[in-house]
């Protein structure tokens, strides 16, 4: 049913972090890799990110923070998704994330958690894999 659709990805910064140059670079790379990319803009609260993801019916939410707030904001996003029963939207993280936090985020189901300097191809392919996985869980029954 949804096989022919390009992967859809929402990029977001769930906190007080005004740096989004890298987001635009990643958005361009994902677009060049054949994906449909949305960006929620700066300072978007977790609830709002989930609302946008649902209205846009995306496969992946890509979260990025460079201000050290990832351990409070990222888990909120995945918790709200679970409350709404949306296991068909994957969450991928990135930013200034120390190894200890990476493990904790992985355990919650937030994958990737790419640090600065990660090759774009690696991020793009990871997002593609998570999108395909999420897509398989999308329900098309009416």
């Amino acid at each position, binding site marked *: *049913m949804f096989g022919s659709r390009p992967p859809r990805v929402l990029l977001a910064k769930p906190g007080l972090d005004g740096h989004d140059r890298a987001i635009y670079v990643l958005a361009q790379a994902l677009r060049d890799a054949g994906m449909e990319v949305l960006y929620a803009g700066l300072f978007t609260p977790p609830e709002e990110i989930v609302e946008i993801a649902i*209205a846009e019916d995306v496969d992946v939410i890509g979260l990025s923070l460079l201000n050290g707030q990832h351990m409070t904001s990222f888990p909120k996003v995945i918790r709200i998704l679970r409350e709404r029963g949306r296991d068909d939207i994957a969450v991928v993280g990135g930013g200034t994330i120390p190894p200890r936090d990476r493990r904790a985020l992985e355990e919650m189901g937030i994958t990737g958690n790419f640090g600065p300097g990660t090759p774009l191809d690696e991020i793009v392919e990871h997002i593609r894999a998570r999108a395909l996985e999420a897509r398989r869980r999308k329900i098309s029954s009416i």
Partner: protein
Amino acid sequence: MSLLDGILSGDPAAVSRAITIVESDPRGEAARRILEVASARGGKALVVGVTGPPGVGKSTLIGRLCDEMASRGRRVSVLAIDASSPFSGGAFLGNRIRMEESLHRHGVFMRSIAARGSTGGLGGSVWGALRVLSAAGYERVIVETVGAGQSDVDVMGIADVILVVVAPGFGDLVQALKAGILEIADAFVVNKADLPGAEELARYLEEVSAGRPVLSVSAASGDGVGRVVDYLEGTRGSRRRDERAAAAVRVAVEEILREEANELMSTQRAREILGEVASGAVSPREAADRILALRGREK
């Protein structure tokens, strides 16, 4: 709750998934059922098309229109259409950024649609999405397109009322004229009215607009937006009904013919005929006639 019940009760998750289904597989069983139920419910959405050259401030204006309409008690939703890359098939759907605050403040449902390189298919999915939104109880649907050529004119064929947005020093009017977006306007909006050149632009449009309204606004500050909504509230969406039906059917017909053309072109016999065109033995037109003669015979 089933998806169909969800649509009729206006649940955003159900509306969103229904749009995905209608977009992905417009002639599949699920899409047909959704459109049947949505059409039976009907609804009374006034479809407002907003188009104009890139950079004139369409998204900012739409955010303001949402604020103003919502504050007058209307349920509003937005469909924003963006081009897909002809090279990768991907798209950057960036229209939300400039209106996110307004959308969130009033619970406006917004969906971004990538054109995916097909004007026909696009018309079909936009038409389907409009049906779903109308059935879900939205009274106003704003459809944004980038104002660049035929595909936009086609999509705008399904709008009840069309605003063409221009701004001084932007989106060269000659280009706009070439793209045919001036002809489809019901009203013109001159945005960035505080900038030099805005008054001249408005005067010029008044000369060529043949009585159609020319409304000056500053979407950034909100000045003049109320007057645009007054105009929209005063329009009767029925004026274009025949035109709209024709446009919707035409894109569907084009889509079906395009699919059939692709099928015919990939048959063994068609490939042989193509070889004769390549060698100069047969003209393209004659080849097309021969390929079309294969219809219903060879799959």
